[in-house]
């Protein structure tokens, strides 16, 4: 296909991605180096019968004009990156010098919003991803051995947690684990503590969020592995059986190597999706106990004062983290490409 025809075909799609993915990233970069204009203050002297008083107030006119002229705000270089809301160099140094023991240091670090967000996000990503793969694989094995007649309905039910809107799915789960919901009762009964509540306990909130993450993503892993299981070579399986391999050894040495490429694929997709974990934290109203990078950006963007510059800084740092996370995959793709 020649260059010109190719361009005609891909132009609309490329244009959409350029305008609404590449340009926003540039906009994020620019915003992250700027801060809002300082209010222009002026001193007004009001004189009454009992003498004069000086009041400082915001000069709205000049402030607005400044805003109009330079909507991006004032250039501040890397200030946004090193301030308390983000990398917090001075606070980190302070914590390092003054902490008594690791526990103290850790609690100081977890008080910094960016660090607590990244700790939660990474914990979530690296706990949920492997467990999703394990659960998905187990479901695939179990469904695969079920009788043909019920496979269809089984797949239908299994797809539900994945296809249902994440915000809705997590709400449904959250209502059940509410202290007055059915699962909430069950947890209280098991723990023997009638005051136990997910809303009030940070560890329970984290566990519930990760439970949701696994519940939501397992169907995806299941479907991919299930498709992979259909193409396991029956000859190899039979040969292993004749060689005296037991059931477990056949799974371990025939099935698992066969679906290993699929595990890489699922892990890649799951890393991407878990790193952006967002909806469950909103549904669980978890902000008091857990903040992910996405919800941190979201809460900066919403609210009364829209902290666009702070959000942009977090966004850029998030994208860098994603880049680091995916770099092994990209390097491998590059090598494959070079070799091909």
């Amino acid at each position, binding site marked *: 296909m020649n260059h010109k025809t190719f361009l005609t075909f891909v132009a609309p799609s490329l244009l959409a991605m350029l305008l609404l993915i590449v340009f926003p990233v540039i906009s994020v970069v620019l915003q992250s180096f700027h801060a809002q204009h300082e209010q222009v203050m002026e001193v007004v002297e009001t004189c009454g019968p009992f003498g004069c008083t000086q009041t400082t107030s915001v000069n709205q006119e000049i402030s607005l004009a400044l805003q109009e002229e330079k909507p991006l705000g004032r250039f501040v270089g890397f200030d946004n990156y090193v301030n308390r809301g983000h990398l917090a160099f001075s606070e980190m140094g302070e914590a390092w010098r003054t902490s008594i023991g690791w526990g103290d240091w850790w609690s100081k670090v977890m008080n910094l919003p960016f660090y607590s967000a990244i700790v939660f996000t990474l914990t979530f990503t690296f706990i949920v991803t492997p467990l999703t793969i394990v659960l998905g694989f187990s479901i695939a094995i179990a469904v695969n051995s079920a009788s043909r007649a019920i496979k269809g309905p089984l797949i239908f039910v299994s797809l539900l947690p994945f296809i249902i809107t994440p915000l809705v799915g997590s709400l449904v789960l959250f209502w059940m684990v509410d202290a007055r919901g059915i699962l909430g009762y069950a947890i209280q009964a098991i723990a023997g503590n009638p005051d136990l509540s997910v809303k009030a306990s940070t560890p329970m909130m984290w566990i519930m969020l990760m439970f949701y993450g696994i519940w939501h993503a397992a169907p995806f892993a299941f479907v991919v592995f299930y498709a992979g299981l259909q193409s396991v070579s029956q000859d190899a399986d039979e040969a292993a059986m004749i060689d005296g391999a037991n059931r477990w050894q056949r799974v371990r040495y025939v099935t698992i190597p066969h679906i290993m490429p699929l595990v890489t694929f699922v892990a890649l997709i799951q890393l991407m999706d878990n790193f952006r974990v967002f909806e469950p934290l909103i549904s669980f109203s978890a902000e008091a106990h857990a903040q992910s990078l996405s919800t941190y950006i979201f809460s900066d963007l919403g609210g009364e004062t829209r902290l666009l510059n702070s959000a942009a800084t977090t966004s850029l740092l998030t994208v860098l983290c*994603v880049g680091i996370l995916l770099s092994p995959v990209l390097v491998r793709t590059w090598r494959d490409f070079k070799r091909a």
Partner: protein
Amino acid sequence: MSTANPRKQPASLRIILTGFLVLWVIMAAFPFLWTLWGSFKVEGDFFSKANWVYALTGESTRVETGGSFTGDGYYGAWVTEEFGRAVMNTSIVCFCVVTISLTLSTLAGYALSRSTYNYAFWILIAALMFRAMPQITLVSGYLLPFYEWNLWGRLGTTIVVLVAINQPFSLWMMTSFFRNIPKDLDESAMVDGCNRFQAFRHVILPVMWPGVVTTGLFSFLLAYNDFPVAAMLLDQQNQTMIPKIASFLGTTQTKGNVMFAVASVVSATAPLFVLILFFQRQIVSGLTAGAVKG
């Protein structure tokens, strides 16, 4: 497979596997059934302080409304809070996103699958990286320019944004789908004197529908399920379903009508149930499409 003796599972394994499956089915389906049942109760039963059994029997519902079931939640959501308008907005957004997104990605995916040059590879890698970026990071790039240019709050803006966010994924899917259509097909048409566009129009178009349906399904799901983009880019008037449900939560805790949220959650889930029912095979093939290609 035949049920030859060595393949037959021992009873203990059968029981473990069946037990595990039953457990999983309960885990996957029960929350939705529970919420559906509970949506016809009053809040005092759905969140029962006294006894969880009330959620089944509807003790408070009988006291408050006279019957064991009540449609108050649905009435509140659809009539008082005008959930219907949000449904309308979601329908518009979904329809437009699916149509536009499919048109763009079909054309581009076809070209990407047929090009032998390096840049096709790089476009796909760029798309993969775009796919990895959390959507909310892009949203923070949109807000300032959209305010400045007065684009914020409109349905049209959100549609265009969702189309773009959807492109990377659709591109990958359509490309891998077109790779499975033999090149000989369009090349022989071109030997017969068609140009690229005629070959695409007359030879590829008739055979590409399964791939288009599958990609369309996932575009629909993305538009339907989207929360971060719609929540940040739409004003009150143009709100879609999912942000609307989220906004119920903010206000309901004080007003004491969580049941509006419950009813609207059930309403928003119903279309997806139907979707899975009819398109189960396409969803499964779509989920595995990327994996097979690697």
